[in-house]
């Protein structure tokens, strides 16, 4: 909190670190979080671009170390999808799962960047508000979840036909009797609402909480020598634990994406 003299109180410190670099009318829907967008797009381009460069030169012969690593990733994702989705996974679902996993993973991994050092760098560059972790912005996670939600509906209609999909909306899971139709519909409605909410909020909550804990430890470190020692030790511990959370949340997000899309392909 030393990097800017104007931030004197803890609440100001936290508020500063948790506010977005916005563009457009404040507090309206047409606001854009520049930091979230720029970070996520750059990370996506770098991560998928690196994999793309390896994939372009992929050889069936002895692979290079980079290719072996990418193939490891490929096999990992492909195995997961294979276990859940039984169909032509290579056409869409497996590559989509790879995209989700890699992108969410690199966006989550931005949580490892020490908040105050990054803030110093950003302020040196003349930027005073910049959030490094796109997945701790609910817009990102909700965008991903919503995209998956639309894909879910798209595949549901594509596989079962519009009639079949609507029919299932009223007849599953309790049966086709006319008096249970409302219950079926209500049930499905809740399911369709809860899926994207839980999908997005799980990731957002984990990443946001992680960031807040780093900030709290940063606050503690600013209180004196003992605070510095404990803050540093606990910060290191939380970082190490966060490696697990970052990978796990990316994995869970990918798995849920695959599960939702696979469910859309299957009848009840």
């Amino acid at each position, binding site marked *: 909190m030393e990097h800017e003299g104007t931030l004197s109180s803890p609440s100001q410190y936290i508020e500063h670190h948790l506010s977005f670099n916005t563009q*457009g009318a404040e*507090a*309206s*829907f*047409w*606001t*854009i*979080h520049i930091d*979230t*967008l720029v970070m*996520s*797009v750059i990370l*996506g381009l770098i991560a*998928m671009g690196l*994999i*793309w460069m*390896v*994939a*372009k030169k*992929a*050889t*069936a*012969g002895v*692979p290079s170390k980079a*290719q072996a690593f*990418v*193939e490891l990733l*490929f*096999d990992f994702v492909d195995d997961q999808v294979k276990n859940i989705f039984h169909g032509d996974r*290579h*056409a*869409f679902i*497996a*590559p*989509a799962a*790879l*995209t*989700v996993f890699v*992108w969410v993973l690199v966006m989550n991994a931005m949580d490892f960047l020490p908040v105050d050092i990054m803030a110093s760098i950003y302020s040196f560059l003349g930027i005073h508000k910049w959030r490094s972790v*796109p997945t701790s*912005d*609910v*817009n*990102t996670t*909700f*965008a*991903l979840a*919503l*995209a998956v939600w639309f894909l879910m509906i798209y595949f549901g209609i594509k596989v079962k036909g519009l009639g079949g999909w609507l029919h299932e909306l009223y007849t599953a899971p309790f049966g086709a009797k006319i008096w249970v139709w409302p219950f079926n519909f209500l049930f499905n409605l809740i399911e369709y609402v809860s899926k994207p909410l839980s999908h997005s909020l799980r990731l957002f909550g984990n990443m946001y909480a992680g960031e807040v804990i780093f900030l709290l430890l940063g606050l503690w470190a600013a209180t004196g020598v003992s605070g510095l020692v404990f803050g540093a030790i606990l910060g290191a511990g939380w970082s190490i634990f966060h490696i697990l959370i970052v990978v796990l949340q990316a994995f869970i997000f990918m798995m849920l994406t695959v599960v939702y899309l696979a469910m859309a392909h299957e009848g009840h």
Partner: protein
Amino acid sequence: MNINFTLIAQAIAFAILIWFTVKFVWPPLLGAIEKRQKEIADGLAAAQEGKASLEIAEKKSAQSVGEAKQKAAEIISQAEKRASELLEEAKHQAKAEGDRIVLGAKAEINQEVNRAKESLRAQVSTLAIAGAEKILLKEIDKKTHSDMLNKLAKEL
């Protein structure tokens, strides 16, 4: 935590990223991995095949070696038989030749003996005639008694 236009921008970015992966990233990786899997499978199958054909070749070679051995043994035994036959034949021939020579020699000896006997007989008859002449010089006429003398000589 306010939902705003970022959501839509992020969703679009997400869609583009997925499209990119589906189109450009996944297929070459899948192709390379599947091709390698196929090559490994083919290699394993070829190795299996090679092993099997090696076994067959080994069996064949062992068989032909056995056959050759048998043939060689046959040839050797035949040669031995032939050699012993030749030896036997040569023995027979030699024996026959010997017998023939012996026979010839015997015949010659007999001939010689007969000739000697003949000449002896002639000489004896001459001697007898000479002796008798001396004894009977006066009374015996050579011409009248030659028949009797000849008969005598033959009987000797």
